[in-house]
């Protein structure tokens, strides 16, 4: 069973829940930016949570099903159609051969996840199928999805139980009557609140910067990517200039550059960093942040209660 990519859209890559155990060699964890959405897509398909999925930033993806396939769309950032007919997210979809799935622009969210029942045939590298372009690891030959890529869907071991109730109509597809319960996606007009705790270097920032960070609104910058979100807004400064000894960093850490701009580290975060870390976004809100696209507004809600 296979799928042909007609257009990859803004950016599309294969991801799973990440590459663990290689950070001591400098290899980032990587994996899906919105882990919750990736898991939901797999669960809809009755796959393991760790199964490889497609992660599509924003819109533009177009793909053709070369056989009858069961799949699920989760996350957001786009409106989906099959053969020109709108199709809903967070449900199991069965589609016949020759059908075309397209992702169109939408005001909500940022990343769509597509899981296929039985999963994709992708060679794992260093324990994961996640694409990490900088070291050509995982995915399709270590790179993002391009025009003409043919993705192989694993042979069915068993018919998913849930698939039996789906009736294919005259448009060439059918969707499940039930759906997965998911959180609301952020909209371009929202101010998204992110729960944070003070970072290891919180005390090194001057009081004015601590107040700005906690009270002002920041915007997700256009330079944001899978490595990190560059936040635009007021600049932050330290009480005094301090050179820090580099130490481990990870997803959720908010580091501040020498120019005073906060960067929130995301899935492909480097393993070690040397910038002062003002705060970290609680892991429960990382999926929400992964669904914020450039231009969206964010407010950091500092919870002074530290877990340690």
């Amino acid at each position, binding site marked *: 069973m296979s799928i042909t990519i007609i257009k990859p859209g803004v950016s599309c890559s294969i991801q799973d829940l990440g590459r*663990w*155990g*290689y*950070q*001591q*060699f*400098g*290899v*980032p964890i990587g994996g899906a930016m919105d882990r919750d959405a990736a898991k939901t897509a797999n669960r809809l398909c009755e796959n393991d949570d760790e199964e490889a999925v497609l992660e599509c930033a924003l819109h533009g993806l177009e793909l053709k099903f070369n056989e009858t396939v069961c799949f699920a769309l989760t996350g957001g950032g786009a409106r989906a159609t099959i053969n020109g007919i709108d199709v809903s997210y967070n449900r199991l979809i069965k589609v016949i051969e020759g059908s075309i799935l397209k992702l169109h622009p939408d005001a909500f969210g940022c990343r769509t996840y597509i899981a296929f029942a039985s999963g994709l045939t992708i060679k794992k*590298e*260093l324990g994961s199928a996640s694409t990490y372009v*900088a*070291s*050509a*690891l995982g995915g399709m030959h270590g790179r993002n999805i391009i025009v003409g890529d043919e993705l192989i869907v694993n042979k069915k071991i068993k018919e998913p139980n849930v698939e039996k109730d789906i009736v294919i109509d005259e448009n060439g597809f059918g969707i499940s009557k039930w759906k997965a319960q998911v959180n609301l996606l952020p909209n371009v007009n929202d101010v998204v609140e992110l729960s944070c*705790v003070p970072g*290891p270097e919180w005390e090194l920032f001057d009081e004015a910067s601590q107040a700005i960070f906690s009270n002002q609104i920041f915007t997700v910058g256009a330079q944001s990517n899978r490595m990190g979100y560059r936040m635009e807004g007021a600049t932050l400064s330290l009480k005094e200039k301090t050179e*820090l*000894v*580099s*130490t*481990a*960093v*990870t*997803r*959720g*850490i908010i580091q501040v550059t020498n120019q005073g701009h906060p960067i929130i580290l995301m899935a492909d975060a*480097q*393993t*070690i960093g040397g910038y002062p*870390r003002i705060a*970290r976004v*609680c*892991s429960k809100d990382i999926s929400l942040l992964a669904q914020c696209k450039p231009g969206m507004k964010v407010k950091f809600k500092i919870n002074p209660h*530290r*877990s*340690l």
Partner: protein
Amino acid sequence: MQAPRIYAIHDRALTIEFSTSISEEINLLVLQLHASLETNPFDGFIESVPAYSSLTVYFKEDVSITKVETTLLEHYTQCIASSSTNIAIAIQSAKHIIPVCYDIEFGLDLEEVATTCKLSIQEVIAIHTSIEFRVYMIGFVPGFAYMGTLPVALETKRKNNPRLAVPEGSVAIAGLQTGIYPATIPGGWNILGKTPVKMFDKTKEPCSFLQVGDTVQFKSITKKEFEEHK
């Protein structure tokens, strides 16, 4: 020895900071704690990441963070005790001689470094090849080893405008550190030359050519030798 500072960088990751300065002695303790955790992992341990003077431990979400903290301190106390009585875990560290071609075709900043440091190009090369460097940590990108300590005579600042693409294999310096770019990526270090040795290979075990604790001495080779090595 000051008491270590322990803090969370994630709800599933704790950092134990031994010190806020860089020394070989501290880095060796970091490695001992790393080895101690890898040889004798606690329930729910995923991996640990050594840095210059700290170690970060990642664990599964069903483990209590306070329990990990207690376990980490136990391992730490043991490491301190055993290092003072010379029964420390033997850290396997390799000695490498890495060939570098210091031709100006590869050493894109060689002339600038020589000018800044008020040295001749030959003197820059002589200093860079005279020291046995220690690998303090691996990060930035897969396989990138942070090595020290460079003599003060070769101390330089990072470039004001980092290059968008530093060629793979470039041997570079910044501050009192030296390193080798394992892939063609953006970077701001000053490039002295190029090595034909591959620093990151996903098909090898381990994938990184250099390991924390290894020592490296650079050896100057000609362009012909560089081509032959490839």
